[in-house]
């Protein structure tokens, strides 16, 4: 993949919704923002970090705020550039490329708009290759790379740069700032060199996202053997086909937590229970955990094979549940403490997906 054009946006968006694993924010608005930017500024070159000079500066952008607020306060586009430029000014170095931090959900597409507007290439890598709710839940944290210094900006010209002592504190400070900045803001964090990206980031995430999106689109189009091809190429496993028979939503400390119960569509007595905190985190088949975070639990509409998100799921929805392996880069020391089931408060051990 050498460049991203307006024509790639649909596949990327479908892939991003899937990798949102139920959350990550609806990428619809991000898709429109990216589309407008690519039409206005032209295609964005896609580069591998290894092809950049090792000491070149790579800066990330993402939206930070509340998904429900973003529905009303659509991005201006300029706030992302402002965060990047603010951090670059603080560091005293111009960025050579932009990188997404979260390829999954709406943060997949917004950095593309920023890269287009700034005339910079985008790096084909990220730090999650799925959606997670907090800034420190990255492979960079596992590698000991700091989230700070980081910049938060709004669309009006307000900017702040934070130096932080650890990545949890980065999360806390950023959240505190955006409450005052209107809950639909931009962040640029984890500044690093291209050499560090090569060594520590998840590689090829954007290409992976476009590929799974394209494969899933082929399924939606009813192409022969497309479903099997989609599962095989992403290493996914189909676990359950069922109907939502119970949906318990509650909110605690700012997270949308819910429990979904699915009944087997084919009439067996098996049930599947899925625990959700913004994203789908654990799937139990008859009380036995079968898919656990950081592997991805994706719900697809039984008829259309569209990814079904936590926000829109409803009683009676008929879905297929698949487990997708997380990026191999996650498998290193500290993974389970940071993003395993116990990190989200579940007394459940991590289970591998069946081969």
């Amino acid at each position, binding site marked *: 993949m050498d460049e991203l054009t307006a024509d790639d946006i649909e596949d990327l968006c479908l892939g991003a919704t899937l990798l949102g694993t139920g959350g990550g924010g609806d990428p619809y608005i991000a898709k429109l*923002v990216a589309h407008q930017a690519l039409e206005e500024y032209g295609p964005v070159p896609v580069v591998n970090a290894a092809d950049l000079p090792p000491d070149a500066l790579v800066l990330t952008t993402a939206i930070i705020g509340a998904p429900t607020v973003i*529905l009303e306060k659509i991005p*201006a586009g300029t706030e992302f550039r402002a965060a990047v430029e603010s951090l670059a000014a603080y560091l005293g170095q111009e960025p050579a490329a932009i990188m997404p931090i979260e390829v999954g959900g709406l943060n997949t597409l917004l950095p593309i708009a920023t890269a287009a507007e700034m005339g910079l290439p985008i790096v084909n890598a990220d730090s999650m290759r799925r959606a997670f709710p907090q800034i420190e839940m990255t492979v960079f944290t596992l590698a000991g790379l700091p989230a700070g210094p980081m910049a938060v900006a709004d*669309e009006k010209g307000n900017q702040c740069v934070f130096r932080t002592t650890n990545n949890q504190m980065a999360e806390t400070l950023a959240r505190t700032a955006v409450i005052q900045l*209107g809950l639909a803001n931009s962040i640029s964090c984890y500044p690093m060199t291209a050499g560090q990206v090569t060594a520590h980031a998840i590689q090829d995430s954007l290409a992976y996202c476009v590929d799974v999106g394209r494969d899933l689109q082929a399924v939606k189009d009813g192409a022969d053997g497309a479903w099997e091809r989609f599962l095989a190429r992403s290493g996914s496993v189909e676990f359950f086909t069922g109907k939502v028979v119970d949906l318990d939503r509650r909110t605690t400390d700012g997270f949308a937590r819910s429990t979904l119960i699915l009944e087997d569509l084919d*009439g067996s007595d098996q049930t599947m229970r899925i625990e959700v905190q913004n994203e789908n985190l654990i799937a139990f088949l008859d009380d036995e955990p079968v898919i656990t975070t950081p592997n991805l639990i994706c719900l697809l509409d039984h008829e259309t094979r569209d990814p079904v998100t936590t926000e829109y799921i409803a009683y*009676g929805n008929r879905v297929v549940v698949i487990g997708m392996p997380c990026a191999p880069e996650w498998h290193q020391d500290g993974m389970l403490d940071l993003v395993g089931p116990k990190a989200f408060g579940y007394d459940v051990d991590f289970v591998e997906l069946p081969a």
Partner: protein
Amino acid sequence: MSTTEDQPGEHRIGIDVGGTNTDAVVIDGGGRVLTAVKVATTPDPIDGIQGALAEVLDGIDRTLVTKAMLGTTHPANAVIQRRDLEKVAVLRLAAPSSLGVRPGAAWPIDIRDLVIGTAAIIEGGHEYDGREIAPLDVDAIRRLAADATAAGCRSIAVSAAFSPASNQHELRAQEILVEELGADFPVSLSHQVGSLGLLERENATILNAALLQVASSVVHGFEAALDSHGLDIESYLTQNDGTLMTAAEARRFPVLTLGSGPTNSMRGACALAGLDDAVVVDVGGTSCDAGILVDGFPRESTAAVEVGGVRTNFRMPDLISIGLGGGTIVRDGRAGTGDDLSIGPESVGYAVATEARCVGGTTLTLSDISLAAGRLDGFGDPTLVDALDRALVDDALAWVDEQITIVSERMKSSRQPVPLLAVGGGAHLVPDRIQGISEVQRPEHHSVANAYGACIAEASGTVDRVYSYDETGRESSLDDARERATDAAVRAGADPDRVRITTLTEVPMTYVPGGGCRVMVKAAGPLA
């Protein structure tokens, strides 16, 4: 049977204009059907309304008729067929936020070019916590007013960020536009049209502005038709959610009628059968819509609803629509053998009354198949379909049965069998036995369920607000929302003594401090 009025003497007229048929009923105060008719929808639908009224009022004491309700597909068809839409100037009050997505960005190009005459995103709007994003740019509004007239726009659509919570800027913008263009220049304000979700609400507001002329002519036609029958009575139109607005309101908010047809059909069928929970399958001339009623109201879709390719955020019934109806064209690849059978989705639509084989036409339709199989009676001449090949008839029927089984299964909420109501002009196509369905009911007068649904519709009020549970407490927040919805329903004409809360949805706002929660409440009640 549900009772909607206390005064048994009072009569109501319900009319439903569909793509194929225009139905009308007259009911008494006890909800009993006095007369019911079905006539073909005419190229100018007002003619069909006139015709239906003339027939349905035959033998009715007109002095007893007090109200008339109309459900119509006029505005929806205007959008879908890009017909009679007016040019609109679009004003968004949200800058410097939202510049990343222009108004109409995701619209199909044909309707965008047709409808959006000029557009501006100017400073204004509010934050989630009620602060201003920026002070309202009054000069930019005046410039937009000048651009609007220069571009030949006939109305203006104004949408501000977070206007469902803070509507001050939209109201102020309207005042300025009135100063510039006069009080007769129509202005649609987004907080009166849609709920949270700026882009979808803006889309709905633009469509509303584009439909004002269509709405005006429909309401005028409806009132003229009533007038010509000597009826000087209250007139209402039905909204997406199956509740009513006055004809005067419908002139201002036509976009709120876009999805009323299926809702009327489902609520009408439910009331006719005396059931509160059932799958409803409405078979018309061209398509079959399946939905499910829970506690007497359609289950609503959670997905964004597109109308003519334009995304809106209305709460519409959760429906599955397939191309199966009385007018659906049946093609028999090798004449008479039933091989290479292909059915639909093309349909002769309202022309089934003249085009079908069984009425002497030349097109083989599902109505001919149904007649040949003995499911349909009272339409067409059976001898004209005698010659049809049995295998062809059986294969076509098997296809129909399979399709209806699939849609009803997709609608059900559990494995528990539920009753199914078959309604609409093509209901004869629905088989008597369906897997997973406890019984198939065909309520009396089922073919005019839409018009009956319009007749029994209630007045409603809705609220969609963000509350801070930490500040006001969950219970008092919910009480406030219930009270606001109830007041709105009463203002819309509901009887204060019989208004009730029909839905209450809480959506916690992730990452919002103070226990932010979006609360959506609807109250409805019979007309006072």
